[in-house]
């Protein structure tokens, strides 16, 4: 301070002082706005009951958007969506009793059972749900419910001439360098491999998986649609993917890339040797344990079982509705009559962990 006093009244001093305070003001303003911006979105939702319903979903939001819009239009209940790709369980568990989650939506039987096991769901006793969903597609304790069915099928090059197929044949050496498939660790493949264990036992499945691995035309990666694209691109001849993707691609806008991929493939419903059935997985829903808007949540779940919502599952998602009497989309129908495998999904789910370990053991993704 002493040193400053010498030129207390100088222009120079005034300038530094003025500038310093201006700088301080600017910095202050910066932090003030930072704080404001940081907490402004905080009041976005509350775990207190409102005329809303909070949906936590691992499903891509756009796929379910049509059903949710229809629900809001019919009931004037607003649906807030959180798209949680992974970590749904961890998140709901951590949020605990203050979780905003009302409805939990996910794909794959294993994920649904995980929700139950993690004790983040509660049972729903709804006549509507129980009547609409066949008993084998909901839990016996009413704590999860299937919404739609998705079969895992064979995409074959249209010129390949394949008419029918068994999952077991994927390891046939005659398909060497011709098979495309997504990561073995993906839940869709894990479920299929688990079903294979349930059918043929662990040892046979390991041999099979090694065979499939040596037949791969490329790394086991990408999505199910890439199978169709890579078949068009000449990388592979056959591949495993979910049927609804083929439905989407085959009904994409004429002239679009998607349509070209879809047109390059023929969909064959493969079967297991023992049962002659095709592997079918589910997408499903559960009521969150601490649901703050329980009534609305149940309304939403029941709405998803209505004919209108189930028809949307068929026509916008190209999945099989679980409710009897709701028609499948025509494109999907053209793939043939689905004969679901008789092995119960709850049985298949038991081998999920083993399947995942097998994928590591044979180095499927390497």
């Amino acid at each position, binding site marked *: 301070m002493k040193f400053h006093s010498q030129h207390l009244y100088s222009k120079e001093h005034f300038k530094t002082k003025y500038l310093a305070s201006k700088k301080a003001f600017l910095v202050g303003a910066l932090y003030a706005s930072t704080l404001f911006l940081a907490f402004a979105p*905080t009041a976005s939702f509350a775990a207190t009951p409102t005329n809303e319903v909070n949906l936590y979903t691992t499903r891509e939001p756009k796929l379910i958007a049509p059903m949710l819009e229809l629900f809001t239009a019919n009931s004037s209940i607003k649906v807030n969506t959180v798209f949680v*790709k992974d970590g749904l369980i961890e998140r709901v568990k951590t*949020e605990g009793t*203050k979780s905003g989650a009302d409805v939990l939506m996910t794909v794959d039987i294993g994920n649904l059972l995980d929700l139950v096991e993690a004790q983040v769901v509660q049972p729903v006793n709804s006549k509507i749900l129980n009547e609409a969903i066949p008993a084998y597609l909901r839990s016996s304790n009413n704590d999860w419910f299937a919404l739609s069915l998705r079969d895992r099928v064979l995409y074959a090059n249209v010129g390949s001439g394949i008419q029918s197929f068994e999952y077991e044949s994927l390891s046939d050496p005659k398909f060497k360098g011709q098979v495309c498939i997504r990561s073995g*660790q993906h839940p869709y493949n894990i479920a299929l491999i688990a079903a294979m264990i349930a059918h043929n036992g662990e040892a046979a499945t390991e041999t099979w998986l090694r065979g499939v691995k040596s037949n791969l035309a490329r790394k086991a*990666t990408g999505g199910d649609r890439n199978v169709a694209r890579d078949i068009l691109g000449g*990388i592979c001849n056959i591949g495993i993917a979910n049927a609804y993707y083929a439905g989407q691609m085959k009904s994409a*806008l004429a002239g679009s890339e998607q349509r070209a991929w879809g047109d390059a493939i023929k969909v064959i419903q493969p079967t297991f040797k023992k049962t002659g059935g095709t592997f079918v997985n589910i997408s499903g829903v559960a009521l969150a344990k601490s649901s703050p808007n329980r009534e609305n949540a149940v309304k939403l779940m029941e709405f998803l079982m209505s004919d209108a919502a189930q028809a949307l599952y068929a026509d916008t998602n190209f999945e099989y509705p679980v409710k009897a009497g709701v028609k499948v989309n025509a494109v999907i129908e053209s793939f043939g009559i689905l004969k679901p495998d008789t092995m119960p999904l709850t049985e298949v789910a038991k081998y999920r962990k083993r399947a995942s370990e097998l994928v590591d053991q044979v180095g499927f993704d390497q």
Partner: protein
Amino acid sequence: MVNVLKHFAIFESGKRYTFAAFVVAVLVCAPLLSLMFEAVQGSIGHWGHLLTYVLPHALWNTILLLLGVGFVVTFLGTGAAWLVTAYDYPGRRFLTWALLLPLAVPTYIIAFTYLDILHPIGPIQGLIRDVLGYSSPREFRLPDIRGLWGAILLMGVVLYPYVYLTTRFMFLTQAASVVEAARVLGETPRGVFLRVALPLARPAIVVGVTLALLETLNDVGAAEFLGVKTLTLAIYTTWVTRSDLAGAAQIALSMLFIIVFLLHFEKRARQRQRYSLVQRMRPMTPTVLKGRHIALAWVLGVIPIAFGFLLPAGYLVVQVFKRMGQQTGFSTSLIQASFNTLTIASVATVLTVTLGLIVAWAARRVRDSANEQSLGKLFSRLASLGYAVPGTVLAIGLLGPLLLIDQGIEWVLGLAQYKVTTLIVLGSTAGLLMAYVIRFLAIANGSIEAGLARIPPSIEQASRLLGESSSRTLWRVHIPLLKPAMISAALLVFVDTMKELPATLMLRPINFETLATLLYGEASRGMYEEGAVAALMIVLLGLLPVILLARAQQRSV
């Protein structure tokens, strides 16, 4: 307030910063500790499986990937830096900032655009077939880019700017006198580069390479798209498909060793910078190029820009235009997501740089002879660990600590008879912000620490002798001197936050989408062409800070 606090020894002027750094270090370590807790609970049986079938291969892949990316970024980054500092030719200034452009392209975007561009039915192979007279990809196609090589090249081509940034700065500020001396003594241009400039720039190169490699380690998207099973991906699948959080935590922690090693390497490299010349900050006189050498310089300079930016960004632009007709251009969700992205990235940047400054200040060298490991240094190292943890893992690790904070808030507010019904931190963007700060603090801290290292302790000593307090010295002397370092730190943090995906996916509150999550949503439907708009927005929004960064560097010299 401050006067009261002064009574406590720890708040005594300098110590206040040490204490603040301690708090920050605790914040950063909290998710790691919670992971450790998780890992200990895991069964040994699982560990056996991972050790036999997963880790060896994943570790080997990761090491190869790191070596490969390290080589590519060193080669491209150093070469590019030399090209724009040692030579002069028309367009040099343009190349100088254009070489930073790939920084705006996240690894997951580069991976999926190249998968499209280079696909047998994509534009490039189509063109090749047309030229060669083939009609179907079944007759002729190039090898698949999915694999380790593809990953190395693609990541290298967008991550080299980290090396370019640090190395160019070194060449500009440090190299002049030695390079000129070497030239006068008759060294060939090649010799000047290999024998003088390169050894001189080694610390800067290591710092840049470390950043690039940490980015590589964090990546999930590109590795997944390209089918490279890295450690990070192994963590991810262990957690997601086997619901084995403990196993994932175990791999994550073992991965920390690689990271600690990298960071240690980086610190050592930076310590050498101390012997650099501080006073003489002037750029060297570049050699003026003529004739075909100009063309050669241009070709060399444009190659990384073309592969790292022009090609992917151009492809996205084409895709967006193609879809303009089919869909309504800018949806409200896209505008909202852009706004969210900009807001949260700005806030995160301010917070991160501020904390980075505090931590770096606590760890600064006060005396020339100071060699001992101060507490501040230790905290600063700990505070840098967050960058090393892949976003996904960080997010899981943070859930527990965030909940604790929420419970703390609830307890405090409960004392004030206020009933809390929401999760204040976990249910808002605050939790997400914390994740960003933890993750990117290393960038801010590193950059500012490097800046501080260039300021001789004598400057602070002079200020203190003249009666200024430690804080006032920081405010009046060091911050003005650190401005370039802080600006580049801020811009890097901003770009990185904007691109961040995995932690954002896990921690964002209800109805809060950023461009990255929007793009991921589209991409995970397998409709990633429709995500082209979001991808392009990320790239475009990233461009501005990148250009500012280039300008800031230009001015600071």
